């Protein structure tokens, strides 16, 4: 390990000042992201019923996203570490504001109306929470002690509870996961893991009875037996699995998916877009997308492994695992492994702020990847 460090530094003498690195761009990451966005726009065109309006808007948001990513990448990690407390604070305030002044639809109150645009504070927290937790643990011994664990739980649970109140159980769980990933990567002791696991088991009935709303319970029940409610909640699952299954090995062809083009598939251009891809491009298409995701996550983990500080490491690791979780949860819910929670498929699903948030995360990862090597005296 020590020697490796030394060797790597020797292999790229003065690399800090050359090419993409000086622009704080991680080229492999950028190429994978561009490929994903390309696939995303291609599928979106078909999924939206060949509606160029959606494609153009999505492309615009992606461009904004890339811009935001480059901007974020320019700031040194020291900056993010120092100011994470502020971002977290702003996030909390806006979550509170949502509770009182929020707008929304279908019984959920998730948005802040800023006049010129609508803004979803929970999206911000997807980056702010792991950053805050990483910053907190980055300055401390690892593995974390009991008091550190308590502190991390507090940092994580305040926003999570606020988001549960909206209610947006899916996002709350993902944000909790992002905080948890940080402390897990920081070497959380096995006994905490075990007790957390047991606690979670015990919490399920409590959640079921006191926290979950009827429609959320319905989604879980539907997952267990979609056939019970063919035209109601089960419809989505039946139609999406039918779309995926009927795609077969090579798919029905771009824009030729009958399930999606004839509106059998619900939410085909947002949360359920993977079913469109699976129907029209078959298993080959799904595998191609999975490969892109795997490359992306792999690259992020390499960045995490090679990062210069504890904060960067934890941050990069948490972001990559969170990203994987998005992909996993979305692909699982559409194919009927998990209950339907509102999690979009990164870079493929149509959706405003979620796209930009994603790019913010990858901006941080680029910043980490292109950090100047810290001179370290390894004895």
């Amino acid at each position, binding site marked *: 390990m020590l020697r490796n460090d030394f060797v790597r530094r020797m292999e790229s003498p003065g690399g800090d000042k050359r090419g993409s690195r000086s622009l704080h761009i991680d080229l492999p990451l950028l190429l994978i992201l561009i490929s994903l966005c390309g696939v995303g726009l291609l599928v979106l065109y078909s999924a939206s019923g060949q509606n160029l309006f959606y494609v153009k808007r999505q492309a615009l948001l992606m461009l904004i996203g890339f811009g935001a990513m480059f901007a974020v990448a320019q700031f040194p990690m020291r900056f993010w570490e120092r100011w994470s407390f502020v971002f977290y604070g702003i996030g909390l305030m806006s979550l509170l504001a949502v509770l009182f002044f929020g707008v929304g639809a279908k019984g959920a109150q998730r948005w802040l109306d800023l006049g010129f645009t609508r803004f979803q504070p929970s999206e911000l927290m997807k980056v702010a929470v792991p950053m805050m937790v990483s910053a907190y643990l980055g*300055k401390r011994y690892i593995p974390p002690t009991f008091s550190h664990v308590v502190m991390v739980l507090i940092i994580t649970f305040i926003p999570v509870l606020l988001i549960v109140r909206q209610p947006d159980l899916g996002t709350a769980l993902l944000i909790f996961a992002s905080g948890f990933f940080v402390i897990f990567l920081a070497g959380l002791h096995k006994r905490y893991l075990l007790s957390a696991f047991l606690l979670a088991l015990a919490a399920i009935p409590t959640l079921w009875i006191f926290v979950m709303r009827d429609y959320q319970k319905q989604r879980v029940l539907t997952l267990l037996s979609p056939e019970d409610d063919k035209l109601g909640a089960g419809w989505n699952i039946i139609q999406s699995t039918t779309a995926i299954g009927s795609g*077969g090995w090579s798919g029905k062809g771009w824009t030729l998916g*009958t399930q999606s083009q*004839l509106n059998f598939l619900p939410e085909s251009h947002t949360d359920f877009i993977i079913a469109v891809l699976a129907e029209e491009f078959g298993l080959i298409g799904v595998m191609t997308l*999975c490969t892109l995701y795997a490359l992306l996550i792999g690259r992020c983990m390499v960045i995490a492994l090679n990062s210069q500080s504890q904060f960067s490491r934890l941050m990069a690791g948490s972001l990559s695992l969170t990203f994987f979780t998005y992909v996993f949860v979305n692909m699982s819910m559409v194919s009927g492994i998990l209950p339907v929670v509102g999690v979009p498929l990164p870079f493929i699903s149509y959706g405003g702020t979620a796209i930009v948030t994603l790019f913010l995360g990858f901006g941080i990862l680029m910043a980490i990847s292109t950090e100047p090597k810290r001179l*370290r005296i390894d004895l």
Partner: protein
Amino acid sequence: MINDAAFSDPARERRIFAGRLLISVFLVFVTGLVVVARYVDLQLTRHKDFATHSDNNRVHVRPAPPSRGLIYDHNGELLADNRPIHILTIVRERSDDLDQLLSTIDTLIDISENDIKRFKKRLKRRKPYEQTPLKYDLTERERGILAVNGYLLEGAEVSARLMRFYPNGELFGHVIGYVGRINERESQTIDSVKYSGTDSIGKTGLEKFYESQLLGEVGSEHVETNARGRVMRVLDNIDPQPGNNLTLHLDSRLQRVAHEAFKDERGALVAIDVKTGGILAMVSAPGYDPNLFTSGISQRNYDSLLNSPDRPLFDRAIRGQYPPGSTIKPLFGLIGLHSNTITMDYAIDDPGFFIMEGIERPWRDHNSKRGGHGKGVDLAEAIIESCDVFFYKMSIKTGIDLLSNYSEKFGLGQTTGIDLPGERPGIMPSKQWKKGARGQSWFNGDTINTSIGQGFMLATPLQLAVMSARIASRGKMVTPKLVKSINGETLVSNEIPEPLAINSEHWDYVHKAMKDVVHSTRGTAKGISKGLSYKIAGKTGTAQVISIKAEEEYDSSRIDKSQWDHALFVAFAPAEDPQIAIGLIVENGEHGSSAAAPIARLVIDVYMNSNTGSHQAAIAEVVN
């Protein structure tokens, strides 16, 4: 905040992190594999099931209803047409809130309470996912409004379909009948495949009798529908075969003139082509507009038709059974001659009444002033002046058996076999009939009543026309038929049985007597002979509605019109070479001579005039 990083051991921290990252990679790999396995399972292992399910989702076989065969009259005039209309339908399953939808529609276009009531009734009988009609025959403006507001109307749809239309309204109502929505009883007996996509069926008249010809063959369309059931494209289709077109013997000009001649009277007229048995005109008055029934008649309209004292729905021409009265006399006279019961020289003295041995009550002569027709009344005079006493005497000599047997050969007492449903047989009484129907034996008095077409005897106007045609054609056993050709192919008429073997002298005698009914100065129908350029042979008749006691005088001014006598007339023309034969009745018209005969003359006039013009034949040629 304590910064303990200063005391940290970076190498150990990296090691811990690397270890945890490794575990994470492992977990990511395993969970990722689960997802991939799920997609492989769905897309490869279970692909076939899902492909089938996906096709079932989108592809539906939709019946393509055939267009119903058209009906033309003899000259090619369209009597039953299919008119494209637009209807507003609702598929119950596709509407989340039906009441909401109905009230939304109500705010957009005019929907009557009746429409809603009938819609709800249909809703109870529909199949799942069936389009249930809410409003028929939308105007262009209504369609526009509905199209613009389509997004508000999930579950409602405007669709085009063909609806039966009868351009002549009530003129042919009874003959052609009408189509109506298939009811529950019918839906159990019909072949549901043939009728898929068709929601109406012939209910009465020719529409019912020729249902199988008119229906056509259903086609099919494989259509791709979206999740809301809207058809996106047609993948494959088998065209429906339209129903066969019928061309009738009916001549709409004769029909029209007969229909109008009845004015406000109740009654019926049937005109037959003597040579072929083709029905040239068939009117039952009053009529009704069959168009009322095609989209489902409203209860109010139906009640008013049903409860009208004039009974417009009753087809008198084939279902009305009346005592034929004196119109039967030429036939009975012919039977008397043929059976040698009487001769052409046979004559009686008529005192104005007839007394039979052993019966105190005399039979009066209804058609003479007191004092009777005088001495030396022969058969010709008895027909011309309609002398009852002659027939009383003759019938006793002939006996009911002969009268009954021969009358049946002329179409009485049995259905004629016309191509219409619901024809009634009338009654030609006989000893056997009385035993069966009444359980009583036959008396001579019954024979005497029968001899002037009263008593038990009943005949439909159609039977009178057939009788008249068979007399006119000297015993040719023609069967009445409405349809002349199907899709241009002339129907091969059933083999006409051998004409009755009756001495031609007897035919000549009876024909001449009937001609003299119209053309002699003593004839009961002499009133219609004025200005005739050809000769009509006929016989008037009067049928009693209530029985008048022998000593009483019939006085129409003292009784209600509904109890006035029925007026009847049978005729054929031209008398020398008969072509058209007619049977008709005017209910409560009192006298055949004044109420019925003029109507017959109008119809025959039109027939004779149009038949001389050769261009009519040319038109018929072109149409067929």
